[in-house]
């Protein structure tokens, strides 16, 4: 009780601290420094309709490469740590109901299509590689939930992951060779703003990031799921 009271008191104190900040806040009427540059000249620089993805992929492209590297490191460390050598911990599953299996069989193609749509249209609409990759990974989660004994082809996943990462760095190097610098997107023509084939390298890079993030997250989740010596408990009443 005292602990709860203390937490609530602390929260009220923090609220007071931020309330003074809130009172003194004035909405800035015009954009400052780099923000005004981005808002004014992104469209003509890169040909991307979505300002955020232009910033993420070109102006701050190196940071995105770093994020992808961090995600790759996390995924590989997790799969190294969680791999069980001995077939010791036997688990019993209750078989999923028929409704869930049918729904997953119907939904998985649509989910993969939605993920691909999100990262292909990254330069036109909100979303991009990371969000599309998360959606792709969720398709695999749905498969695993519907059928716990589903075997994931982790070999193919890791091949896709490493080759897309390699191609990402290669595209950045091509910017160094033909454009203005590492990860410069103007190697390809920028095209008209708002069309699918525009914005130079941004769609290609987003497709690669989406594939890489999707396969990494799928690998991570399938490692969490996989336990050797699985056993399927028969479902009551679902067999009919």
């Amino acid at each position, binding site marked *: 009780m005292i602990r709860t009271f203390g937490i609530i008191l602390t929260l009220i104190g923090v609220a007071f601290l931020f309330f003074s900040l809130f009172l003194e806040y004035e909405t800035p009427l015009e954009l400052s420094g780099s923000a005004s540059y981005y808002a004014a000249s992104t469209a003509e620089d890169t040909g991307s309709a979505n300002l955020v993805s232009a910033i993420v992929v070109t102006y701050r492209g190196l940071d995105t490469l770093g994020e992808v590297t961090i995600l790759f490191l996390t995924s590989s460390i997790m799969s190294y740590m969680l791999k069980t050598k001995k077939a010791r911990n036997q688990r019993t599953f*209750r078989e999923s109901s028929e409704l869930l299996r049918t*729904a997953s069989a*119907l*939904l998985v193609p*649509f989910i993969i299509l939605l993920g691909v749509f999100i990262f292909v249209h990254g330069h036109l609409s909100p979303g991009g590689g990371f969000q599309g990759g998360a959606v792709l990974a969720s398709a695999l989660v749905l498969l695993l939930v519907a059928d716990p004994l589903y075997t994931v082809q982790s070999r193919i996943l890791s091949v896709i992951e490493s080759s897309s990462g390699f191609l990402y760095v290669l595209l950045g190097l091509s910017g160094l060779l033909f454009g203005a610098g590492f990860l410069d997107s103007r190697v390809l023509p920028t095209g008209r703003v708002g069309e699918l084939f525009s914005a130079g390298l941004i769609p290609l890079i987003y497709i690669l990031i989406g594939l890489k993030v999707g396969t990494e997250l799928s690998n991570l989740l399938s490692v969490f799921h996989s336990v050797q010596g699985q056993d399927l408990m028969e479902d009551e*009443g679902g067999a009919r």
Partner: protein
Amino acid sequence: MEITMIAGGVVSLSGSLFLLLGALGVVRMPDLFNRIQAGTKATTLGTMLFLAGIAIAEPSWIPKLLLLILFIIFTNPVSSHVLARSAHHTGIRMSDKTVVDHLAKTTEQRGSESLQGDEQEIAAAKSKGGER
């Protein structure tokens, strides 16, 4: 223009009323299974009407809204089904007024006999409830 706005607004308003009814059902119903019923069926219809109202008022959004409605029709019943099944398997107690439990019965019978006699049982339970 104005007439489509008003028509869409009326449809959206009815959808939001269904959403409110579903939320009230989630709060007021006596046990978990009734809450799942109220929370899923009413809110699915409510969301569909809500999005349909927006589609009437803004015809250029129809493809995406249709996709969203389709998605909700597919996913919402499945999630509530999985929830109800999980609740049944973990042994959540039903309300005292519940009269028939098909899943427990099939678990007992293991699918050997058909489910005849349900109607008589329901009728008997109804008459018993009437006497009460």
